[in-house]
């Protein structure tokens, strides 16, 4: 069944493009902002990972912020064009009628009034939303630029303004997003799907409910006559230079603000400040050791002729016997064992103490067992005298 409707042209192409620019930048700002506000949330973590990390999220947030502000600049310049050159009515300005309309609408909803109020081109619900966007633009723009330039900001304002701006920025975002989800979605998507930002038109019955006054004006033919061409061109000569200067100034200001400060956003590799970590303590010097004898009491030094049996054997037993004779190799347990020598051959060269291994082993002090100096003298004497039994 083909049903034809009367439709009213509501938004020209430029207005619709504006809306979609706003839609893209606002949505991107909302998503990339809220996941930063709630970074520990599982959804946030997933989205940050999906977008390629928090740095990319922040860059996206800033790009869409710039886009949002550029759109706002365009909007106000275009508004100036419409108001000054086309002399259109400033139909977005709220007034007493809007308060009355809101009350009457509510009363009508509650069944207290038969008819709803007749409303103009922009009804109170739309004006509220528009004003909210303007308020949001100012709040978010100011706090956002403060957060973007914290060092510059704190040159003029107390440092506490930065965290305060952060709180305001975050909570204003929550307010804006929830308001869009509640107010905007209800009025243009849930109550009825409004196609005017796609097609540019509204159906007659939609107009009747929401913009009855405007519809009446249209139907009565109370449309303001187009401004004559010569007046338009005259006004353009005044408007365009001013608009150009204002636009350039605002864009330049925006550019200055978003490129001014780098240290707040730049992520650079950390400095490795630890330096050399391996700095050993100076070791405690080892005690310089004078050769000391194998622990044990001094044996009585032999008096008279030096022979193995008259004391030399006793000294060997005392100082060397606990190893040599118990562990294989050289044994000092008897005169014969000593003279036989060990694995390195004979250790005593009779008559030549200087070439006797048994003494040479001891000279550097490294051998674990040692004689007392006076004992050593007697041993040298004994070997030089022929090392007799």
């Amino acid at each position, binding site marked *: 069944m*083909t049903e*034809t*409707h009367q*439709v009213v*042209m509501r938004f020209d192409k430029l207005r619709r493009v504006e809306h979609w620019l706003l839609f893209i930048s606002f949505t991107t700002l909302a998503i990339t902002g809220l996941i930063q506000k709630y*970074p520990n949330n599982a959804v946030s*973590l997933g989205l940050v990972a999906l977008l390629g*990390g*928090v740095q990319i999220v922040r860059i996206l947030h800033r790009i869409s912020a710039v886009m949002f502000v550029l759109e706002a600049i365009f909007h106000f310049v275009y508004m100036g064009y419409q108001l000054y050159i086309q002399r259109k009515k400033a139909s977005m300005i709220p007034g007493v009628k809007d308060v009355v309309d809101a009350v009457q*609408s509510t009363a*009508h*909803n*509650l*069944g207290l009034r038969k008819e709803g109020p007749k409303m103009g081109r922009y009804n109170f619900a739309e004006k509220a939303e528009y004003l909210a966007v303007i308020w949001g633009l100012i709040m978010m723009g100011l706090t956002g630029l403060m957060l973007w330039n914290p060092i510059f900001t*704190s040159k003029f*304002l*107390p*440092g*506490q303004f*930065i*965290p*305060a701006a952060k*709180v*305001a920025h975050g*909570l204003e975002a929550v*307010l804006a997003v929830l*308001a869009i989800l509640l*107010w905007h979605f*209800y009025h243009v998507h849930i*109550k009825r799907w409004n196609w005017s930002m796609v097609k540019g038109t509204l*159906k007659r*019955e939609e107009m009747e409910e929401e913009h009855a006054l405007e519809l009446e004006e*249209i139907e009565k*033919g109370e449309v303001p006559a187009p401004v004559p061409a010569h007046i338009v061109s005259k006004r353009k000569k005044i408007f365009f230079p001013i608009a150009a200067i204002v636009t350039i100034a605002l864009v330049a200001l925006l550019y200055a603000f978003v490129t001014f400060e780098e240290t*707040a956003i730049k*992520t*650079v590799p*950390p*400095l490795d400040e*630890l330096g*050399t*970590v391996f*700095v*050993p303590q100076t070791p405690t010097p*080892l*005690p310089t*050791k004078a050769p*000391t004898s194998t*622990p*044990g009491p001094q044996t009585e030094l032999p008096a008279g002729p030096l022979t*193995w049996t008259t004391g030399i*054997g*006793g000294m060997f037993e005392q100082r060397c*016997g*606990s190893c040599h004779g118990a*562990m*294989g190799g050289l044994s000092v*347990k*008897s005169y014969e064992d000593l003279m036989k020598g060990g694995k390195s051959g004979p250790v005593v060269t009779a008559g030549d103490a200087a070439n006797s291994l048994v003494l040479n082993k001891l000279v550097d002090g490294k051998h*674990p067992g040692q004689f007392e100096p006076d004992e050593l003298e007697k041993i040298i004497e004994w070997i030089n005298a022929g090392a007799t039994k």
Partner: protein
Amino acid sequence: MVQPKRTQISTFTPVLFLFITLLIVAVIALSGTQAVSADSGDAPAAQLPDNTQCLLCHSSPGQTKEFSNGEVKSITVDPQLFGEGMHSNVSCQVCHANISGYPHPENTATTGREGTLQYKALCQQCHTVQADELMDSAHTKLFEGGNLNTPTCADCHNPHADKPFDKVEDGSLTGASHARIAGICAKCHSTIFEEYATSVHGSGVLVDKNPDVPACTDCHGVHSISGPTGVSSFRLTSPNICAKCHTDATIMDKYGISTQVMKTYIADFHGTTVTLFEKIDPDQQTNMPVCFDCHGVHDIRRADDPEKGLQVKENLLSTCQRCHPDATANFPDSWLSHYIPSPEHAPLVYYVGLVYKILIPLVLGAMALFILTDIYRKVFLKRKKNMTKGNTKVIDEPQQSTSAFSQDSEQGKE
């Protein structure tokens, strides 16, 4: 002529005998308290030569070994320390397996370090868990990279003298053990130790012997110690190390320290970024500050330290300026010093938040109320109307066309 005596013990002089007696007493006293989890330690001990044979020489003071590079190392074992130490019931030959008599087989090590490293693989025979942990450590990685100075077991634990670390009933280390650990790391990291000794943690460990206060291993790990330098994952996870104690009210309440430090850190830009990097991109190189960037790495002072504390505004500013060189005197206040905004601390932040906490429910509540009335009319009043009027008359719209109207076929367009 003195008759050579048959048995070993009979040759002991009284002084040596005293050493050995001490040793045996210590062995008896300490046997059964060994905590080594391995099963290979005890069995061979009985069959191996008595340690007294070795100690006969190696207990005498000043025993040294000279390596071919001229380096001299002590090879004296203090029999008393050994007897009281953790290995008192382990035969020397369990580790020094190649030595069974004198002269000892020639040691081919050319340097003292080489001499130590000969014993590198021995400890794992019994201490398998710790050896496995060590394999994952930064020290092992450095060693495998050719740095022979990196410690093996014996560099930290003297196998001939060390006792087990003192612990309290719940198994945690005593304050004295914390101090002992710091002393061990100091052997190689002396400059870091000196810094640490001046810190609030260092004085708590070294002076007060307070077991609540971290020694090196509490932050860096014990055997599986991970390298803090050049590894971004250490930087990114490091706040968790501090948070382990600093969010624990049972410890912090004793000293009146806030446990909100981690929460407030994460809530701010620095902490948010670090947390997100840690969770999503742990290898991200970043200069975003973690705890130690502001509070110090090893020279951590109290916030109210009159000399270096961050409560001194100039100290905080110079800390900020390390990353934000243009920061001026107001800038440090943009960080709330771990305070949760309140009318006393950061009132502006607190009241801005408060305004929004009132504004948001007011605005949304008003919107919701209006929407509810609209739904009420659309759903209930319409139904009521339908019920009273019966069938609603469908009014055909007059098909007028004015200049402002255009025709639009719904089906045609969609």
